[in-house]
């Protein structure tokens, strides 16, 4: 019962947050100079003044701000994000078409970073002054300090240009029939470089974090208790320590999700990955306002959903949250 209340309250709250995002986006982008008339005119190589006025009228851009705003909010609440100025298709369709690749990239990177990072951290924590541990520390510093597009470039120079073993860009070769196993293989193959580049930052961070929290935990009283019980090292690490060490990693991953989403914009641009990031970047360059608003809204939506999921994961792992702090 209590859980249900929490879910309802959370959802209501998320709804209000999204509403705020919509209003904010619309207000912000209303301030952008230029509108669809210029976009169409620019795309088609010029337009007459009459035509431009006609376009504005047909998109309702001659209405006062608040009328447009309420209209927009109302439409969004009905699931209509408007039509792209550039592609002339519903923004929602455009976004849903791009959401898959972005989620694939982001979630794969995130899971890779969390799992590998935790694993690295655990291994490193076994020998806090060992070579691997130093390697992790250095890797973390490099991962944090190197601009993600630069890392991607270095990987491209190495794997695409010099070794020629990985594909450069795209989700898959466009001729591969989507849905077949060859296609999935092709996607996986194309996924390697973007995922490695994107997760490099977080992988290193998480391994450092996991190492620190493992060392913290291995020095903690309850691990001493576990040892005093006569438990073996393996049980101690993987049963007693790991579960606690994962908690801060999940916390940070949850907080960072919107950042990873940001990183995806850059990575998608570098690898021509057909996701929301490239769509966002190109829409900004094209001034495709409805699409930009749609993407901002949608990414906020995804982040909120993801935060809820993190919360859930958190509740599974940590009984303290599960039982007491239900707010």
């Amino acid at each position, binding site marked *: 019962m209590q859980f249900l209340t929490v879910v309802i309250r959370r959802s209501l709250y998320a709804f209000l947050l999204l509403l705020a995002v919509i209003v904010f986006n619309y207000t912000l982008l209303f301030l952008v100079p230029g509108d669809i008339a210029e976009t169409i005119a620019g795309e088609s190589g010029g337009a007459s003044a009459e035509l431009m006025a006609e376009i504005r009228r047909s998109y309702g851009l001659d209405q006062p701000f608040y009328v447009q705003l309420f209209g927009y909010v109302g439409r969004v609440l009905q699931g209509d994000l408007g039509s792209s100025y550039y592609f002339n298709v519903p923004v929602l369709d455009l976004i849903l078409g791009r959401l898959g690749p972005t989620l694939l990239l982001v979630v794969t990177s995130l899971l890779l970073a969390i799992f590998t990072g935790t694993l690295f951290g655990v291994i490193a924590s076994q020998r806090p002054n060992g070579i691997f541990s130093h390697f992790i520390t250095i890797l973390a510093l490099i991962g944090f300090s190197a601009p993600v597009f630069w890392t991607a470039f270095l990987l491209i120079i190495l794997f695409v240009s010099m070794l020629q073993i990985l594909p450069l860009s795209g989700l898959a070769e466009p001729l591969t029939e989507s849905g077949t196993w060859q296609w999935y293989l092709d996607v996986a193959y194309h996924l390697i470089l973007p995922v490695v580049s994107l997760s490099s930052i977080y992988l290193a961070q998480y391994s450092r974090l996991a190492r620190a929290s493992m060392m913290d935990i291995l*020095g903690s009283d309850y691990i001493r208790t576990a040892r005093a019980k006569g438990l073996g090292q393996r049980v101690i690490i993987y049963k007693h320590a790991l579960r606690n060490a994962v908690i801060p990693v999940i916390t940070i991953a949850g907080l960072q999700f919107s950042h990873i989403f940001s990183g995806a914009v850059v990575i998608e641009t570098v690898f021509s990955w057909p996701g929301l990031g490239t769509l966002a970047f190109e829409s900004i360059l094209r001034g495709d306002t409805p699409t930009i608003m749609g993407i901002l809204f949608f990414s906020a939506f995804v982040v909120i959903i993801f935060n809820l999921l993190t919360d859930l994961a958190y509740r599974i792992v940590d009984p303290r949250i599960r039982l007491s702090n239900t707010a």
Partner: protein
Amino acid sequence: MSDSESTTQAGPPPADMDEIFVEHPFRQFVAMYFRNYAAVAGLLVFVTIVGAALFAPMILDLDPFEMVDEPLLRPGEGGHLLGTDNLGRDLFIAIVYGARVTMAVGGAAAGITLFIGLTIGAMAGFYRGWVDEVLMRVTEFFQVLPPLLLAMVLVALFSPTLETVAISIGVVSWTGVARLARAEFLRLREQEFVKAARSIGARDRRIIWLVIMPNALPPLIVNAALTVGIAILFEAALSFLGLSDPNVMSWGKLIGDNRDYLLDAPWTVTFPGVAIFLTVLAMSLIGDGLTDAFNPKLRER
């Protein structure tokens, strides 16, 4: 400040310098910092870059935009230490001048980040209640919008200049600082010395800035060092995407300008990348050093 001898108390004579430092927070701080060699190296890199940023333009008096030679010369060719870029500009000079812009934008953006973050975090943590509630909702609002995406929109909206880039970065990245400051304030406001200050009738503003803030500073200073690094990375990403002021030379811009030459002239992309990398690395090493220096005990583990 008195010298070290006068403050040692009765009891066993100090066995080595560490014993003395226990009594001197600042010197202990410095000593702890310098025990971390990586942090010292970071500081050296940082000082070098800031020095280059400040003094190189006075000494060199060159125009980094000047096309001095053939485009895309290799490092060393034609007397250009790091070669030339796609427009025949000296890459070394461009990087030296770029330090100025990169540090300025990084510093300004970090300053804005800290200012907004500290103010909001301090208010929320100090006043709690509805103030906290409202400010945390605002913070969450900014947390759900992907920062780079929002910064891109902001820069696009207000046209790319140094100021808009710095402000945009600041506006999208303060939430972490705010949360940290809030947590510190929530913790510290319950401490005895704050209660003491309150009991003698100190005003809120005084308690926030003069009583709590100095105690909240250590983690925030460490965070500030990292914030500068993150802001530099941010600027680089925006420049890379072409959302930067074309009138000034920055490292991210160099990479963005030369990205099409990645395969034929990898050095044009590599060297500015190394500059960014080293600077951010220096900032995180400094951050680590500061952490050690603020918490000597942590280090011993």
